[in-house]
């Protein structure tokens, strides 16, 4: 039985096409992926992200515990600050990638992937039990108690302050503020997964439908449209944000995924740090490349083989691939050995037993003309 978010009925009313994602029945699109993608790039889109998990870590030991468990340095966060970070196993493999926000002096909110809620919570509880912070840190999985929406796009700052009793446009990127709506407390963070300016609003599950409706009501005249997971995926692929299960898994490290800037090597030991430091010093065997197709070809898709420039050897595999609605050409991400990962080098993508040329490009693949 697939899980449903509190917005399920709203999606049905909007005529969404529903698909399975990470154990959840979620809208993949309402009108078309291309329309929704372009709405977010040019105006505004709202996504149901209630399937994502929320974990609270609190107590005098919470900061030290999180610094032992996550790769980024949590001590950099002032109250109201947030950061992208990763949770690794002892071999440096990624258990999840997540956002950590500091809510108070000794209280943190972790926003984790829907498909990883159970493994993450089990892992963190195990880490906590085996540590000296067991007595002074509390972990609470509050995923079922909260829903969330992401409101994304260049026009969002023009109406978000009018939606809830808060002024999130005062936030800098990754900061979080508290809002109020119909008597409920909201967390509003200036972040997202699209490469556009935007906000994620977390609300008690029973209030999220009202939050969704309120945003649509205020945002409609600014071009705000509901957007599904299809557009979420094409948007994040264009800007090379990793998706767990594609770019990241327990056998892939943040260094291999090109995420070393979210790993703090000067904060002392954390789970996986030995392996990550070793990779940083000695190099990796695979590294994440971004590429775009150079001829008219079918879009690349996950698991397609990547061949060397000369077409003689398979050097890796595509992990994400799609037609880019912004650029109208095939784009993707894949893992290859570092010696084959030079930006500007040509590779070939095998699509249905035929090889099509692609060019390795800098990340992000898509950058707006400014």
């Amino acid at each position, binding site marked *: 039985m697939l899980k449903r978010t509190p917005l399920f009925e709203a999606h049905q009313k909007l005529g969404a096409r529903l698909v399975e994602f990470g154990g959840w029945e979620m809208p993949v*699109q309402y009108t078309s*992926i*291309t329309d929704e*993608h372009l709405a977010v790039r040019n105006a505004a889109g709202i996504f149901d992200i209630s399937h994502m998990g929320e974990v609270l870590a609190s107590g005098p030991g919470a900061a030290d515990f999180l610094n032992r468990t996550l790769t980024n340095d949590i001590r950099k966060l002032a109250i109201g600050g947030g950061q992208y970070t990763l949770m690794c196993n002892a071999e440096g493999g990624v258990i999840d990638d997540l956002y950590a926000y500091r809510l108070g002096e000794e209280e943190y909110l972790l926003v984790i992937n829907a498909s990883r809620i159970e493994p993450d919570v089990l892992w963190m509880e195990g880490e906590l039990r085996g540590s000296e912070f067991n007595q002074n840190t509390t972990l609470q999985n509050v995923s079922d108690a909260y829903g969330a929406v992401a409101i994304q796009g260049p026009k969002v700052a023009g109406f978000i302050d009018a939606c809830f009793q808060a002024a999130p446009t005062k936030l800098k990127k990754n900061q979080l503020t508290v809002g109020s709506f119909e008597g409920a407390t909201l967390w509003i963070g200036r972040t997202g997964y699209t490469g556009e300016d935007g906000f994620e609003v977390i609300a008690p599950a029973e209030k999220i439908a009202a939050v969704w409706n309120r945003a649509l009501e205020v945002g409609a005249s600014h071009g705000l449209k509901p957007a599904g997971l299809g557009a979420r995926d*094409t948007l994040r692929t264009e800007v090379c944000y990793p998706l767990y299960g594609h770019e990241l898994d327990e056998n892939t490290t943040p260094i291999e995924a090109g995420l070393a800037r979210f790993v703090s090597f000067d904060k002392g030991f954390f789970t996986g740090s030995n392996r990550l430091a070793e990779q940083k010093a000695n190099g990796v065997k695979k590294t994440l490349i971004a590429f775009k197709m150079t001829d008219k070809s*079918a*879009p690349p898709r996950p698991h397609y083989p990547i061949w060397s420039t000369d077409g003689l050897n398979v050097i890796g595999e595509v992990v994400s691939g799609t037609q880019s609605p912004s650029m109208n050409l095939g784009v993707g991400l894949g893992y290859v050995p570092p010696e084959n990962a030079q930006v500007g080098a040509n590779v070939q993508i095998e699509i249905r037993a035929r090889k099509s040329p692609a060019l390795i490009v800098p990340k992000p693949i898509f950058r707006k003309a400014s």
Partner: protein
Amino acid sequence: MSNIPSDLKFAKTHEWVRAAGEFATVGITDHAQHELTDVVFVELPAVGRKVKAGEACAVVESVKTASDIYAPVSGEVVEVNQAVVDNPALVNTAPYADGWFFKLKLANQAEVSTLLTPDAYGAQIKA
């Protein structure tokens, strides 16, 4: 509501056939293009290829997925629609007209009568 022209025959796998003597034109239905949305790439069989009914012989890709297209009847590919390769959106805008895929010289004209009638296809996609 999907458009289902009354002068065509249909395969369960959502291809349409317009038969004229020993030749048949093949495309995908309005219902199919609606399900796919935003067709971004079409790959057609080579002219001269002999296909059997039910054989995968073309591919249509939307932003999200690649889908096989099956020959609804057996025959030899005698013509393909280069316009739809150059402009895949024709599959969405004119699935029964400019968005056609290929023409077959039928191996067995009687095979056409085994396909679904417009009513039967309409019933299938409503089910």
